[in-house]
């Protein structure tokens, strides 16, 4: 384990820093050596990437705060336009320099203004002899702003001629950022994912004050045993640990077991955690509901999860419209005649096949092609076809009233159908059916319609 050392900072501060960033020592020491001493110029821009919850934001924040380096920290999702972003940087800059709040609002529309105002802000304070760090979290958002923003940030040092470094944090690799026109290449640094050992160490780090660290570590061990297979997200795990810890402690609180009685505790918590994996982890029930359940000690069966309400109530014709749309989306056009024409005769699978595919060798291939209809996903279909199918599957005559047409639009707003192509194309609109097979089968069952019989894939 490399101990952090740097001539510019006192050893005590470094030690504290090290205790705050477990499992990220190598990255921190790397950063420290890049940063150099306070007054030294460093890389104009640094790009840090890694999977989510691999500690990018946390490490950066702790590092800058502990060493008391002057910095500005901005989340690019929160400031979603370039103007908001630039203004926010300037405001934070003003705040960190002088204690008295400037009431004046600055207007900063372009990057040119920003550079000017930035120079003023830096000049007015004692920042000149230190490197100023501007950290842009979720930097991938920058790509969606004006084209000049990202390249300009990358060479901000050069543009402003000040001692400033821009740090970009992102979940995606630098190659996806690089604009086609080319730009200044930042120094890139990768934060690898935490291993299970790391997770164990970090999670055990923050143990509740009432219990010993070992006790909590044992709990974390059990927790990871259950959840590591499905979830490696540190934050999520932390959340789950906090949610279920009170249940783990129960035997101890009741005096039935002592803290060392790991086996007993394991027996108590394991089924509970499994249940949690099926419900609260998937957000079937919310964490506050889960907590209440724990208090009441009741069965989660009483509480209906989100998916218990998954059925949708639809008017009668809407159901048939949806069924017709599903058939239109998943059946090839050429089969319509055979499904919906009354006198298609006894054309069964084989003769039908013979008609279209001459050789028997092709037959196998068609079987393969056929099964793929559901794998390929829904295909778009024109409005006419939808209505034609509707008329043939509904028993009684349906007048093409405005009501029917407006139901199609309703289905689109409910996201059960989706409009293909442009919204303002008036003639010949095309739709896709976006519901799943299970859903449509449930719908069809309510109107006594055997949809499987009409699906080409299942013949």
């Amino acid at each position, binding site marked *: 384990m490399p101990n952090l050392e740097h001539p510019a900072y006192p050893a005590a501060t470094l030690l504290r820093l090290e205790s705050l960033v477990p499992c990220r020592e190598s990255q921190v020491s790397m950063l420290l050596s890049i940063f150099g001493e306070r007054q030294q110029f460093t890389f104009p821009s640094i790009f840090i990437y890694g999977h989510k919850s691999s500690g990018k934001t946390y490490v950066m924040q702790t590092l800058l705060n502990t060493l008391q380096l002057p910095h500005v920290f901005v989340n690019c*999702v*929160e400031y979603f336009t370039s103007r908001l972003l630039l203004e926010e940087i300037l405001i934070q800059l003003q705040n960190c320099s002088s204690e008295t709040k400037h009431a004046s609002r600055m207007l900063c529309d372009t990057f040119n203004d920003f550079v000017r105002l930035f120079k003023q802000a830096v000049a007015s304070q004692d920042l000149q002899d230190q490197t100023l760090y501007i950290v842009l979290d979720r930097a991938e958002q920058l790509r969606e702003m004006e084209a000049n923003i990202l390249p300009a940030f990358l060479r901000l040092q050069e543009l402003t001629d000040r001692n400033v470094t821009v740090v970009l944090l992102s979940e995606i690799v630098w190659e996806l950022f690089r604009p086609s026109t080319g730009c200044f290449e930042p120094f890139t640094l990768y934060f690898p994912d935490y291993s299970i050992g790391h997770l164990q160490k970090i999670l055990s780090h923050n143990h509740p004050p009432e219990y010993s660290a070992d006790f909590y570590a044992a709990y974390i061990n059990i927790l990871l045993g259950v959840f590591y297979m499905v979830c490696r997200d540190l934050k999520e795990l932390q959340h789950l640990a906090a949610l279920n810890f009170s249940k783990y402690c129960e035997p101890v609180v009741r005096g039935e077991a002592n803290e060392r009685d790991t086996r007993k505790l394991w027996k108590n918590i394991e089924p509970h955690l499994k249940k949690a994996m099926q419900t609260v982890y998937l957000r079937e029930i919310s964490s506050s509901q889960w907590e209440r359940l724990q208090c009441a000690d009741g069965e989660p069966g009483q509480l209906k999860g989100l998916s218990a309400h998954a059925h949708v109530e639809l008017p009668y014709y*809407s159901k048939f419209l949806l069924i017709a749309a599903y058939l239109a989306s998943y059946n090839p056009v050429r089969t319509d005649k055979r499904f919906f024409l009354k006198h298609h005769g006894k054309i069964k699978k084989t003769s039908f096949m013979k008609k279209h595919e001459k050789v028997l060798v092709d037959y196998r291939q068609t079987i393969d092609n056929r099964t793929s209809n559901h794998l390929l996903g829904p295909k778009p279909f024109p409005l006419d076809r939808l209505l034609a199918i509707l008329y043939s599957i509904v028993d009684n005559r349906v007048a093409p009233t405005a009501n029917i047409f407006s139901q199609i639009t309703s289905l689109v707003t409910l996201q059960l159908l989706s409009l293909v192509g442009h919204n303002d194309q008036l003639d010949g609109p095309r739709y896709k059916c976006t519901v799943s097979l299970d859903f449509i089968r449930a719908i069809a069952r309510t109107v006594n319609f055997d949809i499987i019989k009409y699906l080409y894939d299942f013949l």
Partner: protein
Amino acid sequence: MSTCSVSKGCFVFKPSPKKRRVSPKTAEYFKEANNDSEDSGLRFATCQSLWKQIKSETEQVQEELNKQLFDNLVSFLRRSHSEFQEKTTEWTCRMKSREIPTAALVLGVNVTDHDLTFKSLSEVLQNNITPYVALLQAKDCPGIKNLMQKLMGQLMNCCIDVDSSDEEDYVQVSQHRIRCSMTSLISWYENITKKTDSETPSKKRISRHLQSPPVVVIFKDMESFTTKVLQDFIGISSLLPHSVSSLLCIELFQSLSCKEHLSTIIDKLLLTTQFAFKLSEKVLQVLINIFLYHDFSVQNFIKGFQLCIVEHFHSQPLSVLCCQLVEAKKRVNSLSHSQCENIRRLPSFRRYVESQVSEKQIALLTADNFLKEVIQKLLEDLHVYHENYVPVLRCLHVFTSSLPKYPLGKQIRELHCACLENRVWETEEYESSLQLARMLNKSDLVTMLQKCVEIFVSSSGKEFDKVVEKLKEFLAQFQKLEAGACQERGESVSSQKELQKKTDLYHLQKTLLELKESRRSKKLTKFEMLRFEVVDFIDNLVRNYLVPADHKTLHEIMYFNTASALREHLNAAPRIALHTALNNPYCYLKNQALKSDGGSISNKAPDICIVYKLHLECGRLINLVDWLEAFSTVVMAVEGTNEDAAASDQVDDIIHARFIQAVSELELLGFIKPSKQKTDHVARLTWGGC
């Protein structure tokens, strides 16, 4: 601004030049349309007051239905927020990621009803929880920027509402000058909560809110928001870059199903004597069909009901009598002679007259005063009929709704329709449900009878004292039966024992046959006798009280039965209308020359009709040259004069121009469009006859 256009498109709205001309009073329309302007003013007033009553009634129903849901939501909001405030220092709370309490409200597909629900929801929230409620709609928020703008605008405005009396500086903040970011929202929030804290909570409104009230954001149509916008918004408001759905602490609430809502509305509006206005079977069926088949919208149902009211009072001069009994009797006295004639013309009244003795017939047809007396009596009869009808219907529903397979329908509205349609006791379904009722077991029967007793006791009908007595008597007899049951069981056990003694197969068969025989001819047990009696009793009630309304004299006054008018108004069929207009122009133009149209294409019809008819005979792609030739042939054939020109194979320029115009008109109507597949062809956009 909205248009009356059915199609999507761009519409120009000119600002209205001046104040609009004062539109003629609505009441005038009542007069204009009917040359028979009898009592139009009075009718209009009655109609208005009736609608007002119904409206308030329906609103009340809606409120009650939503109450439970809103209560849950309010308590959820209170709870989630208080948790958030209390435990910030605890260890678990530090460790957990900060979730945003979220309530998912499932409202169903009847979008038109939602507006009302949301309006009352935000009202409830503002009164009980927090003044800071923002309602966001997907169509206003295509991007995160617009969303934030809307949100801030709404929040800051609502704060003005609360302390408009003493805070004026906020009014000046225009929306454009606000920086639309979370930081400014936070600072605004801190500012505002500080202010309310320092204020003495003398204002009732504020004291009811929690300390530091939460900000509630309602997304009206979640499913229509683009995912990106929502993700960003949630990410922003929690300020944690984290997978999005895990930031929400979702609890689900479901509103009442709209079918139940409809049942309640029907219960409150139709199955009551409170309102004199009634719907006939056909009309009700139209409204219910629209609801079930098309939109599931209670709001539309009520609108349809309103239309019925207006139509009824507008078209039926005698509807002046369609009001509460006391008032109606007064109005009868002041009826004019022509109104009396109107009454004499009513089919139901004529039937009544025919059934009277001849002297009375003459008196009824000649003497207005005598007629008025009779009408008063008849109106009273009708009123009593209604009073009795409802409880008996409910009572019958108690029975039919628990039968297997529901031969008479599960819902009371189906039963109601069946009873209005014709004599319900003559139908097969009724027969089969009586059969089934004769097989009910005792406990079911007893609970049903108890329910019936409750219904009759709570009803206002005067004739039901005896019925209640009789029902109670039945109940008492069932009680007695229970006591006597033990003895009977003893008997049956002995016969069973006898059966067990015989082990010989032949004898066994014989005894079994005998047993079967005896069971068939056996006289019924006491319970069975009683059951028959009960069913007969109910049957009697039905025959007495559930006579269809159109068998009643003067039912035309109360019942609206022009279902065709309603269908015309509510079931708009643009495609069919277009087809009729183009296929059979006489229908709209009323020109005699167009009338004798037996499938052939007349040359006198407008050009577009000829072109349309010709195009019906084509396939998907239409050759323009062929079309033009056919068109010119038709047109020439009619004109007939210059046959030489037709022979010359050269199409007249004028006919060519007419053809082009007609085709472009068709294109405008959306029947054809230019095709890219073949240059001189157009593609049909419709198929079939219509």
